[in-house]
């Protein structure tokens, strides 16, 4: 079923040139496959190598060894560079450093313009992308007057206007306030559920991983574990060795259990916990 795979890493290692003497690898022998339409969250603490994965996935970095395949195309082949970037869009942490133009719609048009599309097509894609991220009414605003969350949504629109099959987001919420974070997460989920876009969300916020199809836990340049949120979050000890914490709700559950409240395992979302507690009180 090769066709179902959008992104494939085969024994990929990468080292930043200046660190070559120390032979420190940013990622070491990583292999994974991401299917079309999946929602993947990559979890890892700072410096674990998770950001390198973003840049490896669309031919910005080429693997030092191993292969990265985007829809079957090897990213290290020069002719594949642009086709790979059309397939996989990457959004970075700081929206200020991704926005090229001063006006929202002109910035979103930057990608389609680079693809040399006809004017009508650009117009249609810009409007569609801005609607998808809920920024359509801001299309004529100046980018520097927007809030962080709005800027980041414009940056996402700039990527989806190129209609990639998948989007990789490298800590898109790290610089945002809680409201901005919630907006971005909602946007990303909409892209995945409604437009069927493959999403790879790289983050160190546990809460953002709760609704993923699969979670990759990265530690010290390798993928330590792959699994569903249930599987990953039920092993608190493992997460701790990777420098990660449990989601807040899971932490709360542990504390409640210590106090003698009997709770089933695998409650990670606030909603699930509330439901369970309500059920117990009603029974009592």
């Amino acid at each position: 079923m090769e066709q179902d795979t959008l992104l494939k890493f085969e024994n990929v290692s990468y080292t930043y040139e200046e660190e070559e003497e120390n032979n420190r690898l940013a990622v070491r022998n990583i292999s994974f496959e991401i299917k079309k339409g999946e929602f993947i969250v990559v979890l890892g603490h700072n410096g674990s190598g998770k950001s390198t994965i973003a840049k490896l996935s669309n031919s910005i970095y080429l693997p030092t060894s191993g292969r990265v395949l985007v829809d079957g195309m090897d990213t290290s082949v020069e002719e594949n560079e642009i086709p790979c970037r059309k397939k996989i869009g990457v959004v970075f942490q700081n929206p200020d450093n991704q926005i090229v133009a001063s006006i929202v719609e002109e910035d979103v048009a930057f990608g389609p313009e680079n693809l040399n599309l006809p004017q009508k097509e650009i117009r249609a894609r810009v409007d569609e992308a801005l609607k998808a991220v809920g920024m359509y009414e801001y299309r004529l605003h100046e980018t520097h007057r927007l809030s962080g969350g709005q800027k980041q949504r414009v940056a996402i629109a700039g990527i989806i206007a190129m209609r990639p099959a998948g989007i990789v987001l490298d800590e898109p919420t790290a610089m945002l306030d809680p409201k901005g974070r919630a907006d971005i997460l909602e946007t990303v989920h909409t892209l995945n559920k409604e437009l069927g876009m493959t999403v790879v969300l790289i983050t160190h916020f546990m809460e953002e991983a709760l609704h993923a199809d699969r979670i990759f836990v990265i530690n010290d340049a390798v993928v330590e574990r792959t699994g569903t949120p249930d599987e990953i979050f039920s092993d608190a000890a493992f997460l701790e060795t990777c420098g990660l914490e449990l989601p807040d709700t899971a932490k709360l559950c542990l504390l409640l259990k210590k106090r003698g409240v009997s709770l089933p395992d695998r409650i990670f979302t606030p909603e699930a916990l509330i439901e369970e507690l309500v059920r117990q009180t009603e029974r009592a």
Partner: protein
Amino acid sequence: MIKDITIGQFFPGSSPIHKLDPRAKILILLVYIITLFLVKNFFSLLLLFLFSFICVLISKISAKSVWKSIRALIFIVIFTAVLQIVYNKNGTVLLKPFPQFDFCITSGGVFTAVFLVLRIIALILLSSLLTYTTSPTMLTDAIERLLSPLKLFHIKVHSLAMMMTIALRFIPTLIREIDIIMSAQKARGAKLDAGKFGERIKALISVFVPLFVSSFRRAAELAVAMECRCYTDGANRSRLKVMRFALRDYLAFFICAVIFAGALVVNYVPLCQSLLFERVI
């Protein structure tokens, strides 16, 4: 103070001036500036001044932002005026405040001062109107198109235009950054707005070094983000907004041509001068 910089600011709107083709606006501004410096006659100048004033009115740009752009250059305006009043010795003596010195204020001095002030303000009004009513992308696009003949000399016009777009886009970002760095350095005890001139300049180094470092980091990140969006060298790019001269552009050309020609006629034809100019003095 640093927040007052309005270069490259754009106020979206739908006035006739906003809707003009940016190329037309640039060309008109160019001819306007040339005419402005050719005219030596007060009535021609007044006509040109009124022209820029009416343009500002049509554009519906707020008086506050127009004043801001004038205020930024007010020092130069006042300086020019004072120089003229002090050093110009033409015309009749109006005032001789210190009889023991050879210093006097003459009618010629005052006249030239007013003339120059009007000329500079007219210049500021219309040039700032260009950036106020044109989005930076459109502006650089227009410059790219106007300069495209230079491609014959193997000049990378597109790269120049892209540089301008990015520079304009980052002006507000960097201004905010300077503000943050200044506050951070003040919090650490840097004396940025006290002390002698030399000391202040030295203190500013502590602002500009971090600014440079962060600008390079921004540039690197932006370059990667642009590559992610399939930017290559800009050779084959299409545009969201295609520029085509419309009827209103030709109309604008015509109106401006009439006004500028009028100003030049008044300026150069001796009959007009004797009718208007000399009667005033």
